[in-house]
């Protein structure tokens, strides 16, 4: 059985999509990333351009208006890697609605899927987001402080979420809450459920062009239909987030490596290119080595998920690796540029700030 062979070759479809995405990244994302970070706002028109690419359309079943390609974690990972190589903040914004779609494909019922997919695959980009994070120093997505209580046919949600992309502009928000000692997920439609819901903009070290909000749920009443079916599994959701985080880190690190190599070869100090010194050259070697390892760890997790195998260990290790070495690559990138890495003329300092977000990205994007 050929599918069972160890293989690192993307499919032809995946390769074609990669080529397209890379063009988009080179033409649209990378050139605008720096200015967007300074402006702390997404570039005008960016989300509509993303919509044109049709990512959110692909996995949706044909009878629900999509291309019917189904859940493809490996393809998602390749997409995420490529987008993040353009810009991490813009990538997360672009991928937030797809993440809600992925979650509903895995854990939503038919009615929920219909309702959401129709809107998100309408005629323009419609923001949607996950609300898994909670504010504070020690939080646990497997035991959220946000609670859900049964009330009549529906549920009352109480608590505070953090890092909710798009905030009040998100049409759908997927919220987790503690219900009877277990974690349940709810689909919040901001067109209907506004009573008790409020948003406060948040600011972070990085991800600056991505609009992020704290969301307060003060006795927000949700209908029974808002709850994701019992198939919902918080550990499964977190695995998908870990894979997404590692993919986004991989792409960002690739951007760092690609930017660093020509610089250290050209920059002259003490009469030679600085890359002629082992301390510099070996730093680049470590970058390249750990970047390969990061990608392989995550590809394994994504392929397991796609094949329906247990990906708990692989996803967990992939995200740990990405968190640790992502930051190392981020800080080494600045170090290799010296003073030039510290100023905002070069993107190194932005990558440094963005790569510190890796441990948190799993709460924003799902593979």
């Amino acid at each position, binding site marked *: 059985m050929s599918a069972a062979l160890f293989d690192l070759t993307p499919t032809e479809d995946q390769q074609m999509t990669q080529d397209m995405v890379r063009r988009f990244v080179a033409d649209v994302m990378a050139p605008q990333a720096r200015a967007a970070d300074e402006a702390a706002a997404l570039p005008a028109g960016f989300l509509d351009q993303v919509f044109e690419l049709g990512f959110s359309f692909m996995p949706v079943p044909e009878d629900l208006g999509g291309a019917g390609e189904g859940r493809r974690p490996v393809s998602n990972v390749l997409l995420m890697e490529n987008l993040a190589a353009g810009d991490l903040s813009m990538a997360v914004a672009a991928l937030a609605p797809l993440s809600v779609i992925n979650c509903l494909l895995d854990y939503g019922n038919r009615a929920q899927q219909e309702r959401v997919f129709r809107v998100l695959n309408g005629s323009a980009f419609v923001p949607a987001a996950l609300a898994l994070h909670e504010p504070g120093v020690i939080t646990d997505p497997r035991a959220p402080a946000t609670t859900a209580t049964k009330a009549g046919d529906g549920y009352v949600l109480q608590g505070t979420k953090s890092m909710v992309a798009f905030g009040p502009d998100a049409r759908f928000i997927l919220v987790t809450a503690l219900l009877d000692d277990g974690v349940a997920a709810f689909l919040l439609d901001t067109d209907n459920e506004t009573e008790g819901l409020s948003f406060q903009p948040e600011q972070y070290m990085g991800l600056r062009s991505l609009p992020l909000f704290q969301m307060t749920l003060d006795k927000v009443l949700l209908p029974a239909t808002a709850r994701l079916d019992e198939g919902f599994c918080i550990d499964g959701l977190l695995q998908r987030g870990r894979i997404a985080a590692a993919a986004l880190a991989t792409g960002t690190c690739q951007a760092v490596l690609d930017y660093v190599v020509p610089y250290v070869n050209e920059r002259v100090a003490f009469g030679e290119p600085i890359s002629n010194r082992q301390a510099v050259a070996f730093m680049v070697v470590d970058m390249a080595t750990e970047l390969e390892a990061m990608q392989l760890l995550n590809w394994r997790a994504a392929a397991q998920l796609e094949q329906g195998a247990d990906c708990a260990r692989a996803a967990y290790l992939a995200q740990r690796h990405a968190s640790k070495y992502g930051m190392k690559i981020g800080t080494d990138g600045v170090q290799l540029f010296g003073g030039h890495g510290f100023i905002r003329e070069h993107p190194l300092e932005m990558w*440094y700030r963005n790569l510190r977000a890796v441990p948190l990205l799993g709460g924003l994007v799902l593979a």
Partner: protein
Amino acid sequence: MINLELPKHLQDLQTLLRQFSNDGLRPLSRKYDDLEPKELPEELGPLSELLAAGRKQRSANNSAADNTDAESPAVRNGTNLGTVVGAAELCWGDPALFLAMPAIGLGNAAVEAVATPEQKQQWGELYAAMAITEPGCGSDSAAIRTTATLDGDEWVINGEKIFVTDGYRCKQVVVWASLDTELGKAAIKSFLVPKGTPGMTVTRVEHKLGMRASDTAQIVFDNCRVPRANLLGDPEIAKTAEARKKAFGGVMQTFDNTRPAVAAQGIGTARAALDITEALLRERGVELAYNREYAQLSALENDLYDLETEYEGARLLVLKAAWMADNRLPNSKNASMCKAKAGRMVNTVTLKCVEICGQLGYSKTELLEKLARDSKIIDIYEGTQQIQQLIVARQVLGKSSSELK
């Protein structure tokens, strides 16, 4: 007698500066990080004067305690130790505001060391930036391309300088220029150029990852003329290879003395991040008791102990290098060692504190993310990690710079 606690007069200084940092600097931290002002933050002028006044009064009151000037005591705890202790405490308050304080930099020190009283009088209140780095040279100071040519009784300076701390706000610039680029290191001299001198233009103020309360400028010298007397130090170019080496060595020694002080910025900045982190965790019941075995620890505790270990190791290396200077022991190796260790330590510690504190660590609600941005330059400026390692390596292994490049 072996004792690694600070003497009472330095502990008093710590207490005083800690309060100053907490009440004077911390409340301004977020504001000026957000603003990233070109001009000096208005509160910093008065705060600096307050500090200077305190310094003056302390030195009047406590000259007995600071025993630098005592007649050949067995051991000295003097200016160098005081400097690193003070820098650390002020950086605990805010490393960027510390860096932005007028007249604490290398430029002033260079002028104070050689200028005559008449010159100081003439140049007015001293607030001098140091302009060394050029677009084509980072840590390789010997590769400087800026030139100074004597024309009558004036030096004519041409060239471009980058990464000049205080370059926009200062009142004078001490610029490194070569009298003859063919002659290498020995021909490099420093010149004082008052602000407003025709031909000297600040062409850019950098936007930075951190240290945003401080200004970092690019300065262009286009036939900029200063009086002959504005050359600081010896105007002769050393003739022999030996003398040349010595001359440049003298220039580089300025750095030996300042490296522990820069390393001390790392100490204070790391301490700030650890204190904030530990306070946040204490609210959640995590308390460092320094008595449990590894197998009984949580991951959080274990990692914090690791960070505390790195911090304390770096701190003691800094104190040692300063103590050696106070006691006239050759400390070039130790100065670079402590800068290397403190530089990587502060970056590791601040970044890890952000990670440990999760959402809150990454958020601008707390200062942790700012400290993780400020910290990075401490491992770069005044000689990168790699340059410090080279200096230490040459000394430990007894190598020349041509053997170990």
